[in-house]
């Protein structure tokens, strides 16, 4: 299968008054066509920065210190801003956690949606006759709102964002994101602000639209349950690196990296009684990363070598893992 997105050794730094925050320290991942990749990790692991870097929406104090983001055969990091504008919001679109901050509060939904279509949809924008063009816009909006199962689409189109509930806003974001038939959607914690019953509806909707249009999706979330319900592949991030990536069946049933193992054990479950166990310590300071494997200060199986040498990226049974335990060249390891 062809890859829509290939990120290679991406490094992003933020220049702050405290020093250089190394947010991404060599992220590599791939997303196939029509695939939903779950990007998991805790606060500060770099999952959102990865999403923003793909869209080239990093804040001004961010510096890309290396790496490549190959999208559809082009390196996004080398494109000029005008070229990037043609991709962003059209071929790569986004769904964010808090739609309230991304929808303009003073415009009706129709007008905001119209802007998106007129700027990005060449077919609609090229209609000369004004009345016909507006009709094409309205038709497309109603069609998309119907597709996201919005109740009373005609009425909702005339509403302001504050008149929509959280679930309806997120449906609106999905309608906007899918309306241009993008190749890739970056959904950053799209259901975190929603109640569980609404979350289930929105995830189900996203899955069905994604299948219908064969869209690739990167689902960024801290919730391993959401990933298990939605994705086929998972990439677990820690301190700005992907430390484990693979098919969800294999990663959930037999996590390899001690951090992934710890995460799975830390999760209380609603479906069974389970003793949970936290991971001791806290995430490393990205200004002063520890030498060697960034997880070694918290790792229950840390060895001498982990304190000194960065682990290599290993490929085991179609899975990617960065841990000395599985490196055959390391002596004294007990995998």
């Amino acid at each position, binding site marked *: 299968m062809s890859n829509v997105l290939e990120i290679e050794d991406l490094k992003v730094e933020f220049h702050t008054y405290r020093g250089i925050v190394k947010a991404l320290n060599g992220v590599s991942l791939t997303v196939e066509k029509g695939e939903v990749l779950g990007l998991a990790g805790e*606060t500060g692991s770099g999952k959102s920065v990865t999403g923003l870097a793909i869209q080239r929406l990093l804040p001004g104090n961010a510096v890309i210190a290396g790496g490549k983001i190959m999208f559809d055969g082009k390196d996004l990091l080398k494109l000029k801003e005008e070229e990037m504008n043609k991709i962003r919001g059209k071929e790569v679109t986004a769904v964010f956690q808090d739609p309230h901050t991304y929808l303009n509060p003073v415009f009706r939904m129709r007008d905001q949606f119209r802007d998106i279509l007129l700027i990005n949809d060449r077919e609609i924008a090229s209609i000369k006759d004004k009345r016909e063009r507006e009709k094409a816009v309205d038709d497309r909006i109603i069609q998309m709102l119907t597709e996201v199962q919005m109740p009373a689409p005609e009425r909702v189109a005339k509403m302001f964002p504050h008149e929509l509930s959280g679930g309806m806003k997120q449906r609106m974001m999905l309608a906007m994101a899918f309306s241009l038939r993008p190749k890739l959607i970056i959904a950053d914690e799209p259901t975190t602000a929603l109640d569980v019953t609404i979350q289930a*509806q929105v995830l189900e909707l996203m899955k069905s639209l994604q299948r219908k249009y064969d869209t690739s999706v990167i689902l960024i979330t801290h919730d*391993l*349950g959401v990933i298990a319900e939605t994705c086929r592949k998972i990439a677990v991030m820690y301190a700005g690196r992907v430390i484990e990536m693979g098919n969800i069946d294999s990663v959930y049933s037999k996590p390899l990296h001690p951090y992934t193992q710890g*995460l799975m054990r*830390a999760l209380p479950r609603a479906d069974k009684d389970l003793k949970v166990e936290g*991971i001791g310590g806290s995430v490393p300071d990205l200004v002063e990363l520890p030498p060697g494997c960034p997880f070694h200060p918290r790792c229950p199986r840390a060895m001498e070598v982990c304190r000194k040498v960065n682990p290599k990226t290993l490929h085991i049974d179609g899975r990617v893992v960065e841990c000395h335990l599985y490196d055959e060249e390391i002596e004294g390891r007990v995998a």
Partner: protein
Amino acid sequence: MMEAVSVSGPEKTETEGNILVRVEGLRKWFPILGGVLQRTIGYVYAVEDATFNIKSAETFALVGESGSGKTTVGLMLAKLEPPTAGKIFFRAKDVSKLSSSETKWYRKKVQMVFQDPYASLNPRMLIKDTILEVMKVHKIGGSNNYDRAVELMTRVGLSEEHLYRYPHELSGGQRQRAVLARALCVEPEFIILDEPTASLDVSVQAQVLDLLKSLQNEFHYTYLLITHNLAVVRYISDRTVVMYRGMWVESSPTRELFGRAEHPYTQALLASVPIPEPRSTARELLRGEPPNPTERVKACPFTDRCPYVMPICSEKIPPVTQINESHQVRCWLTVKK
């Protein structure tokens, strides 16, 4: 304006002696002000009926989605919002009738921990000063207060050095521990935990939950856990009441609730929780969204979304059905059975 609404609650099966907090028909309506004169033009009927009792040294969970009224119930229990109607008894004392010295006693016995520990700590005070101030206000100890603060910090898994930090110098988990230390410094009996781990990462959440459990084992605190996270409920609570649109709909020991939920809403809620285990079977999805809180609840509030809806459901509020001595549900389906 206040028409009589039948208030029904779980039968009292426990002896009063074991019960620390009893809540009866608690209601809270927030007025909506409008117009030039800022007159009341309507109400947000946040809580219509909350009825439950909490036993000493147990963890009692109040579960519901946003708008279910669970946080408002917590605020009323902490005496931060006066109820519109209904009664709260703490150790069989009517909380609304406490004298001012009794109120001070109540505020000491009942402590609250909020979701966002950063918002509940003064950013310009050292953790030490935050804790010592609370002890001073409640006239606790004297010269050995500092030693007490150190001891509390160790109790919550922090150390003396953390007393000399500002809130922004602590991580999320450490801040929540510091908030807990502050709550514990007045020797409370009853601690209201409003989404205590919602802002924490999972690896840290597990640590905090275990800390809460071990503190309870050692010091026999009674917890009211307010949360939407059912996995957390299953992990630490003994009994649970489920709320929907301001009304309690099911009350049961937690173990039984997860094994045998009777109310269709509880069942749907349990089925909606994403399980961190890949599976092939599709989930039963609940349609629709919770009803508008500016309208009174006149029938079962779940009618619009319920897969088993019957004509009677939209006519009357369902009465309480006793499934067994500790499990109650409010649903016409169980009445019919």
